[in-house]
């Protein structure tokens, strides 16, 4: 009995809800065009495997990411979000990722404050030459979110049934 309970994956925000068997998380990956998107491309062309749970969206710069995007992703299909951009100092638009960094911290803390686990929203800097790092990042995010279980907070009605 004990092992059974242990094996059941519950949503960390709502422990009364159990994940269906063979549940796989959906992760929204929002990547900057100039570094992380090229980095993910390199991961593919270098034939490094990373989990297929991530769904990638390309944006011009990490500062293009309005906190709204994260909220919207979490409301619809996503169980977690990964936002990735250029390393500080490498931004194609010189300072975009510095602005983005501030916004990310505030968004992350606010989402945590209203009840989302802090690992639901994650950020990384991945340059165009860091193919293996991108695979590592996606592996880590997927593992983290698998531990947290499915997200059941504030889902839009049509997305409630999984």
């Amino acid at each position: 009995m004990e092992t059974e309970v242990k094996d059941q994956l519950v949503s960390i925000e709502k422990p009364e809800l159990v994940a269906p068997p063979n549940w796989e998380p959906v992760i929204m990956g929002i990547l900057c065009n100039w570094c992380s998107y090229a980095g993910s491309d390199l991961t593919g062309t270098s034939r490094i495997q990373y989990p297929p749970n991530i769904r990638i969206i390309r944006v011009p710069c990490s500062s293009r990411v309005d906190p709204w995007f994260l909220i919207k992703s979490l409301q619809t299909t996503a169980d977690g979000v990964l936002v990735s951009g250029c390393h500080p100092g490498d931004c194609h638009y010189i300072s975009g990722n510095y602005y983005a960094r501030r916004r990310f911290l505030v968004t992350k803390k606010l989402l945590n404050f209203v009840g989302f686990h802090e690992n639901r929203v994650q950020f990384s800097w991945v340059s165009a030459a860091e193919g293996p790092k991108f695979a590592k990042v996606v592996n880590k995010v997927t593992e983290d979110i698998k531990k947290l279980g499915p997200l059941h907070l504030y889902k839009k009605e049509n997305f409630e049934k999984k």
Partner: protein
Amino acid sequence: MNYTKQIQEIAAKLFAEGKIDVFVGYRMNGFDDNQVPVLISGPQDISKLVFTDKSVFNLVNYLKTDHTRRKRVGLVVKGCDSRSLNLMLTESQVKRENLYVVGICCEGVVDDDGQRMQNCVECMVPDAVVYDELLGETLSGSQTLTGSKPYIVNVDIAALAEKPLTERAAYFEEVFESCIRCNACRHSCPLCYCAKCCIDQETATLYNGANTTSAAFHALMTWSLHLAGRCVDCRNCEKACPSHLPLHLLHKQNESVIFKNFQEHLAGVNPGDRGAFYKYSMQDPDDFIM
């Protein structure tokens, strides 16, 4: 705190000199001792003006309306209101030369029960920071303007932050469930002046205007994040909310994070300061990013 007489004198003087077209102040609401904002367009209505502890609303909100736009306006501002006025000036929403600002050294306003409002108890900038004329005794001089007082973390935030995640999630789910999506919070906010709001556009496509918990979550979270680094904690939104939602929780949470991590002054304290999200520093925390 009673500046009724002084404000009436100032308004009379301004109308006599022809310096203003409209004066925005407070009047008694007519049936109890609470006050409502009033726009006065001539010297005949000056006797309506009052200013006491019950003058709770942020009058800067009325600079968005057609009654005041492109007109010369006299205005009464308290400490928090003046900070939102400062932000509106910085963001080019109003022209300083069109305004005559009566600043108040605020001692705090009271709510319906006669209790001092929570944001006034925790207020760090009670004096008006932008004014043509200052009423009242300034307690600590202009040093308060740069936020030399230590930052006071809101009591509700501190209490909620200690609770476990599941309890916080349950609490906020109830909060967002009570929202009726009337958007009074947005309309009452002096800094929400966009002609077309992104929340409405989203509502049209994603939710068909549905009044669901999910839609309320989306609207309030987006709204508070668009006001992060700009909110001055005047709590006009909370006073306007028909469901009495604790909207300050979202704003104060953002403010405390910004204040702790970015070494910023409070929003609107310095003229020309556009808020924390409009600038950056190389020393911003980076440890949460992989």
